[in-house]
């Protein structure tokens, strides 16, 4: 069964949320499938956390509907919804031990004491905290608190696990480790995970699908590769990674192919799936990711097309070198990234460079 065949777990139907005059959610329509690792990605203030909290039941919606597993959540309070949340601050109860924290949600569970203790031990083992049960919660490190929060939420076997920027308080190394662990955990338990993050890399690494949000609206909902290769608008393209933009002129649109003339790159024809409706900001623009441009060194020939430029800036990153290259006949330099391999020189500023590129990697926003 592929992800697309799975039933819907969450459904947003034209969800609006007002805080007084402020329109925080502006008509959210989306479905999240069962067993999916789904991310809500966007800059701060875009409404992603608000949307997550409407699933948990911490925010009432002004209009529309939030459905969980086919049931409308209108009037259903947070404490009976089939969701559990991992908070940004982890919200570990500081006056309780690790096992009391993890077992907190089992208080109303009719099972025997021994069975509950077993469930707590299993949950702790699952998050890699075996033997930490008796410790005081306030003495744990950030990463350990994170794991306790996960165990505490997962022990109730919710239909949906909500994660509100769970990794933002960790340092880089720890964050990368927890990313891998969260993916492993999600596959193991098979529960729908919904992650809120402002970190595009985190979203790309972890998610099956991502909803990119700006100003209370979903700008694009797609899998990571589509989002990266075919961003729906310049804004999405700019938020996810780096993209070079150049003005272009539309020559013809036959439906099957779109002919354009782009500054620096000249004429090219694009397939319909390369053409995005854009922001409606007027004027056509082409977009190219830095890694789709390659510098051709002596003796190398372009696999597709070739264009000339001058190196304006060189930034050396160890494994990569970033170049800003200005093409002939353009005013903005193109950012491109080259993997550094032994024996290949790093070009100097002012050097002439031949760039290889392919119209297949171009996206047109119109």
């Amino acid at each position, binding site marked *: 069964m592929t992800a697309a065949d799975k039933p819907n777990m969450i459904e947003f139907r034209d969800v609006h949320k007002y805080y007084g005059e402020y329109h925080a959610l502006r008509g959210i329509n989306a479905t999240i499938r069962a067993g999916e690792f789904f991310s809500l990605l966007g800059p701060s203030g875009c409404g992603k956390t608000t949307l997550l909290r409407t699933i948990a039941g911490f925010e009432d919606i002004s209009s529309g509907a939030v459905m969980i597993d086919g049931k409308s959540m209108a009037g259903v309070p*947070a*404490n*009976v919804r089939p969701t559990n949340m991992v908070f940004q601050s982890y*919200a570990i109860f500081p*006056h309780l031990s690790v096992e009391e924290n993890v077992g907190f949600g089992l*208080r109303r569970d009719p099972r025997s004491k021994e069975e509950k203790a077993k469930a707590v031990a299993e949950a702790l083992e699952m998050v890699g905290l075996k033997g930490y049960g008796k410790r005081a919660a306030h003495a744990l490190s950030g990463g350990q608190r994170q794991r306790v929060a996960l165990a*505490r939420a997962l022990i109730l076997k919710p239909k949906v696990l909500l994660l509100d920027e769970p990794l933002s308080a960790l340092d880089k190394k720890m964050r990368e480790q927890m990313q891998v662990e969260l993916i492993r955990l999600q596959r193991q338990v098979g529960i729908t995970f919904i992650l809120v993050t402002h970190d595009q890399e985190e979203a790309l690494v972890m998610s099956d699908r991502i909803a990119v949000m700006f100003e209370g609206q979903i700008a694009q909902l797609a899998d990571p590769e589509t989002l990266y290769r075919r961003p729906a608008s310049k804004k999405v393209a700019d938020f996810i990674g780096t993209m070079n933009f150049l003005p272009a002129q539309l020559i013809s649109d036959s439906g099957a192919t779109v002919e354009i003339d782009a500054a620096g790159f000249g004429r090219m024809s694009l397939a319909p799936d390369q053409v995005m409706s854009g922001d409606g900001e007027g004027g056509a623009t082409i977009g190219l990711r830095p890694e789709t441009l390659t510098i051709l060194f002596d003796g190398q020939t372009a696999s597709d097309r070739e264009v000339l430029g001058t190196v304006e800036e060189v930034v050396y990153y160890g494994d990569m070198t970033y170049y800003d290259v200005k093409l002939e006949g353009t005013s903005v330099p193109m950012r491109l990234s080259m993997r550094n391999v032994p024996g290949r020189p790093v070009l100097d500023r002012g050097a002439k460079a031949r760039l290889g590129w392919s119209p297949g990697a171009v996206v047109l926003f119109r």
Partner: protein
Amino acid sequence: MSKSPSLKVYVIAYLLFLYAPIALLPLFAFNDSRVIAFPLAGFTTNWFAEMWADANLFTAFRNSLIIAVSSSLLATTLGVFAARASTRYKFPAKGAVLGLIMLPMVLPEMILAMSLLVVLIALGVPLSIFTIILGHVLVCTPFAVAILTSAFQSLDRSLEEAAYDLGETSASTFRLIILPLVMPGIISSLLICFTISLDEFIISNFLGSGDPILSVYIFGQFRFPAKVPAVMALGFILVCVSICLLTIAEYFRRRGIAKTGGKDTGGFL
């Protein structure tokens, strides 16, 4: 930073002026003479025995204890409500309401006592220990609110949401999460209100019906020079008890803040 010797002298003089009189208390409490004067006459514990034998003093102490315990319980309960409201909820004229709650802290107690007396007499309420408790609650509540606001503020809101998310109701969340976490603040508030009430003189004097109250009784004893050494002995005990209570209160307040991982933003010590 330059060190000015005159500033040093000033600080020493200031501290002496503040604390030297209190240091005299134990000195004369153990001094074997009815006259409060130097040179000291020798060591005695007679004054403690004399104080102990005074039946009126015991009645005064019992009354003061009833007043202090009741008013600290009432003021702290009201303080919990006010602190919770001020840290969690938005309501119209919030600033004004909270300002009015805190006002008795800076209002001259004399004015409070006089206006309360006028109102109580106008309403025909007979003066009693109960009216003193009312007055003390008014004076203690701002302190309770100040301490408890600091306790409630250091509470992360997502702790409540987490408990709620894990299936608890608002009532059980309050009992299982909020109350244990603000308990150090509550204990601290109880102890400080108790101390304030025990020491309070003006309201006890104005709103009392003549039942002996500790502070008023002590003031009365000063009219009789022969009684002064015994009062000194009592004063010495009260100072010790006050310091102990305040220290315990501050200990609990700080422990509470450390426990919830918050930053220390208030307090009196």
